[in-house]
């Protein structure tokens, strides 16, 4: 029982804390910009790298992976060392982890603004960065498991299981969703197509929420809430039950993003059922957190940190009740593609992730700088401003979502649609304005925090290495009066890791494998053919500009949607779509059947100045598409990549592709000329027009001339 002296590494905690704050500000500023752009199209500034379609992924990646990511690492590095009674496994790995992660963030911001995107939400980063993410994540894993293995405390506290589950599941999700075939140094195509791509994407996307935004934060909640309240968590038994239930059930919930789409019905039902079951373990976490404060609510009145944590946990509960409700098909029929989804996201993001991060920052910074918080009053002000900010954000979005959905579905007495799409948008502009005020308030609360923490840091000095001592772990773990199997696994982190992997893998395998292996899941439609080279180039421009962020491509089998857009979307139409572009939001109308609806000249004018074709439109202008030339040098590589992925272009077609591309482009150029519109044949706008005119047309037409050219 020899007592060993060692030091906790606080420097790495400080670094992650500062990074959390920096990227939080950056990410929220990006969010404010895009919120304003929605009602003020001029705020797109007419430049490709400031346009909504490119800034929105910067916002989401910054707040999720940069803000919450660094926040997670801050919380893990602080708590893990102390729960293990051991310094982090390796200081060099800590440094590589920290700087590697920040490098990823910077690369992400630069490449996303430059238009290098995979076109899949929350997984936009292209393949070189995906590889870097995997490497840094492995460094984090080695550091974390190394610390756990050399721990001086045999029991693994519940927070650590959440960290373990986070690590293994994020690894699995990232690897599977990042299967992409590069065709250039910075661009690739998703391995998956159409329905399969959608299912993998949202298996990933929802579990990014579960295992990046939820489980690591539940883990840090289980550490920092007891610390802040100075009392133990309400029920350890409950934490065990809800942990295993959560990690098992969450994985299945992905299809709730795809209800009433072309995803096979059995997969949709699984997503719904498991999402509803998920209320139980999620609320287990919430109740465990809130009940921890039973008998101590007077402390919450005095302490801003506890205020942040209580609201965070409450928002977690609200979000995890609302989510399952949104997963019910009849509710989803109304909410999908509307701002209700955005409201739901931001209850969780601003309330749960944001507020818990702030609470932890206010707790950690004074401690590692060995000085009291500069101003409890300012922290309390931050709390109230932030809370009002959340309310002003979320309520207008609920209103907007519900209103827009009802307006979309409204018919006149004669049986025609009552509202044009654009009317439903202009009607909710006041809500968009209010939302941006809410967001600005939330951000100003963050600025107050920055000021408060800077003053705190200046008044103190970093305890870079915090002295501690604990007896070394005995060779044999002490036994208790009752042997039980969870004690067995708690002392064995590797087995915990493997069992967690099994638990999360089951859901993925059982949902994904049948979709992939069963031919009849994706009924093939004979008339559906691959995109022509020009259309493929156009599609890639569509992805690059982030069009899918405002425009869906998925007509649902509802009367109002069929009336407004045309025939509902069939699974077989998307078999060559690498990546799928079904979209999640209709800030603009659905485009699944836009092919052939408008003449080329309409698209030409609309992309240049949307308000000229649609008065009152909030769409930004895309004037650079008229000067940019199509990158024809890369056409052969694109075709070869598609052939590898199974798209049935004729063998050797990559050599022929550019000729066909120019022929089709000249046709469009001639057609535009006949309407007095001049453009070089190889302008990017021509490719985009070609793509848009093709979307959704295959199922209604006999083979078009361009397809006959393909089979030459």
């Amino acid at each position: 029982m020899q007592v060993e002296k060692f030091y906790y590494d606080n420097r790495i905690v400080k670094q992650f804390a500062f990074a959390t704050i920096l990227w939080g500000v950056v990410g929220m500023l990006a969010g404010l910009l895009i919120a304003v752009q929605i009602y003020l199209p001029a705020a797109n500034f007419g430049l490709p790298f400031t346009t909504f379609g490119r800034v929105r992924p910067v916002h989401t990646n910054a707040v999720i992976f940069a803000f919450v990511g660094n926040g997670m690492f801050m919380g893990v590095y602080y708590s893990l060392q102390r729960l293990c009674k051991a310094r982090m496994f390796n200081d060099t790995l800590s440094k590589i982890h920290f700087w590697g992660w920040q490098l990823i963030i910077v690369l992400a911001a630069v490449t996303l603004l430059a238009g290098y995107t995979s076109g899949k939400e929350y997984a936009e980063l292209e393949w070189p960065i995906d590889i870097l993410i995997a490497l840094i994540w492995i460094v984090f894993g080695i550091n974390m498991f190394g610390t756990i293995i050399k721990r001086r405390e045999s029991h693994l506290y519940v927070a650590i299981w959440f960290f373990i589950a986070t690590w293994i599941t994020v690894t699995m999700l990232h690897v599977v969703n990042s299967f992409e075939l590069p065709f250039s140094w910075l661009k690739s195509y998703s391995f998956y197509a159409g329905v399969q791509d959608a299912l993998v994407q949202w298996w990933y996307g929802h579990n990014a929420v579960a295992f990046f935004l939820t489980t690591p934060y539940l883990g840090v909640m289980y550490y920092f809430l007891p610390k802040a309240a100075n009392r133990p968590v309400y029920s350890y038994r409950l934490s065990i039950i809800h942990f295993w239930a959560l990690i098992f059930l969450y994985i299945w919930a992905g299809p709730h993003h795809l209800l009433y789409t072309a995803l096979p019905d059995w997969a949709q039902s699984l997503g719904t059922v498991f999402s509803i079951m998920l209320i139980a373990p999620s609320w287990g976490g919430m109740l465990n957190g809130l009940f921890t404060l039973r008998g101590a609510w007077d402390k919450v009145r005095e302490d801003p940190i506890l205020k942040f944590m209580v609201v965070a946990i409450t928002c977690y509960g609200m979000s995890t009740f609302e989510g399952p409700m949104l997963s019910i098909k009849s509710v989803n029929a109304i909410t999908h593609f509307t701002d209700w989804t955005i409201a739901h996201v931001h209850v969780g993001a601003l309330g749960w992730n944001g507020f818990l991060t702030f609470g932890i920052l206010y707790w950690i910074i004074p401690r590692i700088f060995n000085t009291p918080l500069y101003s409890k009053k300012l922290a309390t002000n931050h709390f109230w401003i932030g809370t009002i900010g959340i309310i002003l954000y979320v309520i207008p979005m609920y209103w907007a979502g519900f209103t827009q959905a009802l307006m979309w579905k409204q018919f006149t007495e004669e049986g025609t649609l009552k509202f044009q799409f654009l009317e439903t948008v202009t009607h909710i502009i006041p809500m968009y304005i209010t939302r941006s005020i809410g967001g600005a308030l939330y951000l100003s609360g963050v600025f107050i925090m920055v000021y408060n923490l800077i003053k705190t840091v200046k008044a103190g000095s970093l305890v870079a290495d915090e002295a501690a001592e604990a007896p070394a772990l005995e060779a044999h773990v002490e036994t208790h009066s009752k042997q039980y199997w969870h004690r067995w696994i708690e002392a064995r982190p590797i087995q915990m890791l493997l069992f967690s992997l099994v638990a999360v893998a089951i859901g993925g395998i059982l949902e994904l494998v049948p979709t992939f292996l069963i031919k009849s899941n994706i009924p093939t439609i004979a008339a559906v053919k691959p995109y022509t080279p020009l259309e493929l180039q156009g599609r890639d421009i569509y992805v690059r500009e982030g069009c899918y962020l405002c425009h869906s491509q998925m007509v649902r089998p509802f009367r109002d949607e069929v009336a407004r857009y045309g025939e509902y979307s069939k699974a077989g139409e998307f078999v060559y779509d690498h990546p799928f572009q079904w979209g999640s939001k209709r800030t603009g109308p659905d485009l699944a059947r836009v092919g052939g609806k408008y003449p080329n000249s309409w698209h030409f004018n609309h992309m240049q100045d949307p308000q000229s074709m649609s008065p009152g439109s909030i769409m930004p202008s895309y004037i650079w598409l008229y000067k940019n030339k199509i990158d024809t040098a890369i056409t052969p590589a694109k075709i070869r990549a598609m052939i590898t992925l199974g798209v049935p272009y004729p063998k050797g077609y990559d050599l022929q592709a550019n000729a066909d591309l120019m022929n089709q482009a000249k046709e469009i150029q001639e057609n535009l000329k006949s309407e007095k519109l001049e453009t070089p044949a190889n302008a990017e706008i021509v490719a985009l027009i070609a793509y848009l005119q093709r979307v959704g047309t295959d199922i209604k037409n006999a083979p078009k001339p361009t397809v006959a050219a393909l089979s030459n």
Partner: protein
Amino acid sequence: MKFIHYLETITGVDIFGLSSLTIFFTFFVGMTIWVMTSDKKSLDKINHLPLDN
């Protein structure tokens, strides 16, 4: 995406659902029994780990 072993039909696929339900059910019944019968003192000790440090 090209796979080698396409199944031609969906018949019999309910084995996936049945097996997952069985795994899930067995696991959770087992875990609940353990949770109900475990030793309170050691649980309290673990619960206090963040506070002792």
